[in-house]
């Protein structure tokens, strides 16, 4: 759950399988024959989409579908470099204050209208329009103005340099001609979108199925797979049973399913499994207002008492990596010199004793000034893995004499009543992050108001300075230095106990060819996926268009 | 045996038991009785004496947990207890029919009078549909219901109590039965209506040549309608004889007690004034005579053994060690 932060990166699938660095694709069906058109890809998803307009698509399912229907100006390529999409090139001024985009000529909307700079301008206007219910406006607050220079050129002026700006222009561009007289919040285009992407919406049966059809005029080339069928299957167990009966071609698995259920001969024969790190990390965050946790020795002791490798092996079946800070190994901001602390209970006990926590009354639990060391670890409902992690942490901390109560809270209550209002002692959560290493919202000391994301109350002037600096710098080498430094400081300060980076675990039917794993995952070349004619399963229905 | 000299209904050692929660209640205990053709026999007793059970047992209408555990019921020479279910059903309602106590509950509330009437007609005679209807209307008229065609299509609750009982009687005579068993047919009715219904029964019995088994606790009714009477106490027959004889000179102290409590015919508030003591708990009967706790004439031997049902010189049957004795005598 963590954040519903989606990248509109490449094709929709990436939304959920958002990836950096293909570490170990277990196999790959690289092309052997000539790609053939036809067939359909059936994707299983837990949730339904709600609004198929990029600037209003807040849930992950909407994000995935929108990614197939729309294009941003830019995208990440398979190596996680910023790449051209609707813009064929772009220039950043030396002072970092203006970015000029040159649009790809002859791109057309699904309804045949040409895509122009006016559409980009329109998209921006709607993003900052206070009457549009978009939550994404904050990424454009530093924009000073957007100028249409000619139908294919557009210039964005910034009030101050803003490095994550390029990423923000991966937002899908929306058609002005279809929307300028509509109320965006309620327009029928929310359910009947007109985009530029490789697929068009053919049918949407709420809660059941979203059917997309190949866009024959897609500017790269027509996708080989005729249809992309997005089935909504809200229960994980059902989803897996559907895989077992061939009802679904592509789906993400849980570690348990991946490691223990998906290695049967049937699944091995029919499906191809992929595995690569997701972009995010799971952590224990502390309320630093709490005098127990404001003591760095206590946080270090907990860091040493929690055996992250055991958590990774036991609950994730090793499908991930121990985290040392906010960045995964694959990120250029990751500092390889930061080593995970080896678990050491004796050292943990020593540190706790130093901070005044020893078992004075001999009841097995540490205490100080007559108060036992007991705290509540809260996490959100609906995530079995996280629940198990909490249970294991509880057991591990019991080993050093700290008593942990677990409380699992339904999401809205969790956010609103506990996190926002700082009514927690420690929280088990995960952040899934953008590819850009900017962590301003998470760790800058100004972001501690109710409803903001530095809810631990972390404040370090040096980090504050670095985070501001990082945002203003476009040069990646300089930024690397900055964010590696941030990584080191956070690993030392431990406002969080960083636990692990989980792997994304998609499984896909073998008849789908040309599925290639890359640093960004498997979905980036979806338009090149195909099924050899002899193996095609679903009949094509060229008249599927609405 | 020659059929013509056989009684219409002969009950031999009829015994009915109810089983429940580990106890066995003998509701009818070794009753031997007969009803001659054209005769009317009354069975009297307090509530709980087994008279209704007896009436139901004749055509095996006893429902679980009750069951006939011993005895025979010979009707027109055939043992009803030995009949197959379908044979028995031809007798029930066909040859033997019933009129029950409460016409308000004894008629099915969701079916019209006609539906309930024609059901019996179609089942036991060869009349179908239209003919059954015509016959049904005729029967209703026969039992004294005015505007019979309209009443035929009415629901039971649209009729008065007396009319409902007339409907019950019409249903009972619809199949020209030989024996009519009337179980407290007037108890639930108003006094004036009671008289009318009794008159109707007597009249029908005479006109149709019916035999009648009348179950009642009301001795005044017995006197007006029946020739013979059998008195039951705690499931057992305690006295049996011609009505005139029994009323003039009761042999059993219980009968005597009953008669003593009898109000004058037509008296206001004609409730059976109760005799001292309570009717016994059938599950815990004493070994001897069941009437011992209430009997003014108890002797030690009464407690030891159940007295036998002996036939006296007068042709009276009585279950008492010293019949015809009067208290204080």
């Amino acid at each position: 759950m963590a954040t519903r932060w989606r990248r509109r990166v490449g094709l929709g699938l990436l939304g959920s399988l958002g990836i950096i660095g293909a570490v170990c694709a277990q196999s790959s069906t690289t092309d052997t024959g000539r790609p053939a058109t036809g067939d359909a890809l059936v994707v299983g998803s837990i949730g339904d989409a709600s609004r198929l307009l990029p600037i209003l698509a807040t849930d992950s399912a909407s994000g995935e579908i929108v990614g197939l229907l729309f294009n941003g100006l830019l995208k990440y390529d398979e190596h996680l470099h910023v790449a051209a999409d609707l813009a064929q090139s772009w220039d950043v001024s030396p002072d970092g204050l203006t970015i000029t985009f040159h649009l790809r000529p002859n791109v057309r909307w699904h309804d045949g209208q040409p895509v122009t700079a006016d559409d980009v301008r329109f998209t921006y206007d709607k993003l900052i329009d206070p009457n549009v219910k978009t939550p994404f406006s904050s990424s454009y607050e530093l924009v000073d103005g957007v100028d249409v220079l000619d139908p294919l050129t557009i210039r964005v002026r910034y009030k101050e340099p803003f490095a994550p700006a390029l990423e923000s222009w991966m937002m899908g561009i929306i058609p002005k001609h279809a929307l300028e007289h509509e109320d965006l919040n309620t327009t029928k285009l929310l359910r009947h979108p007109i985009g530029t992407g490789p697929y068009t919406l053919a049918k949407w049966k709420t809660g059941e199925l979203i059917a997309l059809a190949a866009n024959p005029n897609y500017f790269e080339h027509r996708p080989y797979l005729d249809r992309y069928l997005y089935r909504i299957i809200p229960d994980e167990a059902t989803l897996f049973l559907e895989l077992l009966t061939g009802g679904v071609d592509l789906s993400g698995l849980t570690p348990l399913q991946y490691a223990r259920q998906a290695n049967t001969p049937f699944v091995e024969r029919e499906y191809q499994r992929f595995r690569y790190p997701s972009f995010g990390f799971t952590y224990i965050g502390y309320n630093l207002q709490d005098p127990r946790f404001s003591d760095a020795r206590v946080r270090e002791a907990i860091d040493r008492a929690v055996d992250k490798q055991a958590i990774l092996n036991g609950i994730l079946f090793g499908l991930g990596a121990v985290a040392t800070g906010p960045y995964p190994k694959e990120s250029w901001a990751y500092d390889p010199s930061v080593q995970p602390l080896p678990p050491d209970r004796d050292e943990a006990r020593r540190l706790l004793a130093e901070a005044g926590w020893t078992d004075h009354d001999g009841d097995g639990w540490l205490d100080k000034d007559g108060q036992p060391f007991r705290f509540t670890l809260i996490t959100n409902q609906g995530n079995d893995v996280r629940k198990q992690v909490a249970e294991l942490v509880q057991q591990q901390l019991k080993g050093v004499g700290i008593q942990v109560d677990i409380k699992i809270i339904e999401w809205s209550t969790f956010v609103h009543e506990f996190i926002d209002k700082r009514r927690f002692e420690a929280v088990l959560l995960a952040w899934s992050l953008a590819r850009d290493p900017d962590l301003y919202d998470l760790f800058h000391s100004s972001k501690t108001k109710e409803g903001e994301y530095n809810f631990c109350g972390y404040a370090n002037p040096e980090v504050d300075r670095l985070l501001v600096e990082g945002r203003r710098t476009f040069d990646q080498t300089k930024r690397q230095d900055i964010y590696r430094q941030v990584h080191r400081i956070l690993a030392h300060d431990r406002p969080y106990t960083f636990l692990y980076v989980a792997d994304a675990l998609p499984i896909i039917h073998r008849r789908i060819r040309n599925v290639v794993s890359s640093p960004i995952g498997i979905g980036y070349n979806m338009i090149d996926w195909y099924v050899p004619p002899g193996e095609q399963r679903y009949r094509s229905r060229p008249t599927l268009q609405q | 045996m020659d059929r013509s000299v056989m009684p219409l209904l002969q009950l031999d050692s009829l015994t009915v038991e109810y089983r429940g929660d580990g106890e066995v209640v003998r509701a009818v205990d070794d009753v031997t009785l007969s009803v001659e053709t054209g005769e009317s026999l009354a069975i009297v007793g307090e509530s709980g004496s087994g008279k209704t059970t007896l009436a139901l047992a004749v055509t095996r209408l006893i429902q679980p947990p009750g069951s006939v555990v011993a005895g025979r019921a010979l009707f027109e020479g055939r043992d009803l207890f030995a009949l197959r279910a379908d044979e028995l059903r031809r007798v029930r309602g066909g040859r033997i029919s019933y009129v029950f106590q409460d016409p308000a509950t004894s008629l099915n509330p969701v079916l019209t009078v006609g539906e309930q009437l024609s059901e019996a007609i179609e089942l036991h005679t060869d009349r179908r549909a239209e003919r059954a209807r015509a016959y049904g209307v005729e029967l209703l008229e026969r039992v004294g219901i005015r505007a019979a065609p309209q009443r035929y299509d009415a629901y039971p609750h649209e009729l008065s109590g007396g009319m409902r009982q007339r409907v019950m009687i019409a249903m009972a005579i619809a199949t020209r039965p030989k024996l009519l068993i009337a179980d407290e047919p007037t108890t639930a009715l108003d006094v004036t209506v009671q008289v009318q219904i009794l008159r109707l029964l007597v009249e029908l019995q005479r006109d149709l040549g019916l035999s009648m088994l009348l179950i009642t606790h009301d001795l005044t009714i017995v006197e007006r309608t029946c020739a013979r009477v059998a008195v039951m106490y705690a499931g057992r027959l305690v006295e049996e004889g011609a009505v005139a004889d029994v009323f003039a000179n009761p042999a059993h102290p219980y009968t005597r007690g009953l008669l003593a409590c009898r109000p004058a015919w037509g008296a206001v508030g004609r409730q059976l004034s109760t005799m001292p003591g309570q009717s016994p708990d059938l599950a815990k009967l004493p070994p001897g005579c069941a009437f011992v706790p209430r009997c003014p004439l108890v002797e030690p031997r009464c407690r030891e053994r159940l007295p036998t049902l002996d036939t006296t010189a007068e042709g009276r049957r009585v279950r008492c060690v010293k019949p015809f004795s009067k208290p204080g005598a």
Partner: protein
Amino acid sequence: MKNRVAWVALGTIAMLAIVASLAPWIAPYDPLETRIVDALLPPSAAHWLGTDQLGRDVLSRLLYGTRISLTIGLLSVSVAVVLGTFIGAIAGFFGGWVDSVLMRLVDTLLSVPLMFLLLAIVAMDPAQQLLALAGWPVIGPSVKLLFRWIDPRIMVLMIAIGAMSWMGVARLVRAEIMTLKEREFVLAARVAGASPWRILTRHLIPNAMAPVLVSATLGVGGAILTESVLSYLGLGVMPPTPSWGNMLNEGRVALGVAWWLTMSPGLCILLTVLAFNLAGEGIREWIDR
């Protein structure tokens, strides 16, 4: 009672109660202790019912779960019975506007979907609110005592399920009281000058309890089922405390690899709820006799 089925059911319940109270002595392992190396072992001599994903012994968790599930069942029904009897008795006894106000409340609560109420209650965490009273002069000590007895983690569920199911009891009690209060012994007590309170508590409520007993027995089964449903929605008993409902739900995702994780709690719920229902039916027949 000659209903043999009901006796078997009562016997099962008694056995469950014994198992629940003996759990600490008969459980072969600590139900909370995780041993990752022993994760997901199928049933064997060492672990009769296998182990779960954290290597915990399923049998031990099941035995402790008996405690939790039965406690939730019994306590939430107690909450419902106390609340329902109180409100139903007052409505039935006083009648008039008191009755109509209370019965409208019942009608209202019955037409608001129960699940929403339940979610709202679970989300509002009534145990936490109660705990906040711990510092108060009079209520405080009793609240503390209550929490010594009952784990706050199951208290939430208990209150929520109880608060959701008292309406039926209230209707039952009200109807009983309304007929009882016209009976001779009540009139006699009234003539003898007994206070309304005394009449209510001494004469009416005890006599109205028979049908409540039946519905309470059935209610225990219902509460155990409700707990499992809430577990499915992730709102059940907080981990690591095992309850049958959350064990069943945890096992659900591992259905294909570890059938033993769902089979044993599933059967336990089935048999227990069945036993309570059959016992309830038996008692009903016995009362109606």
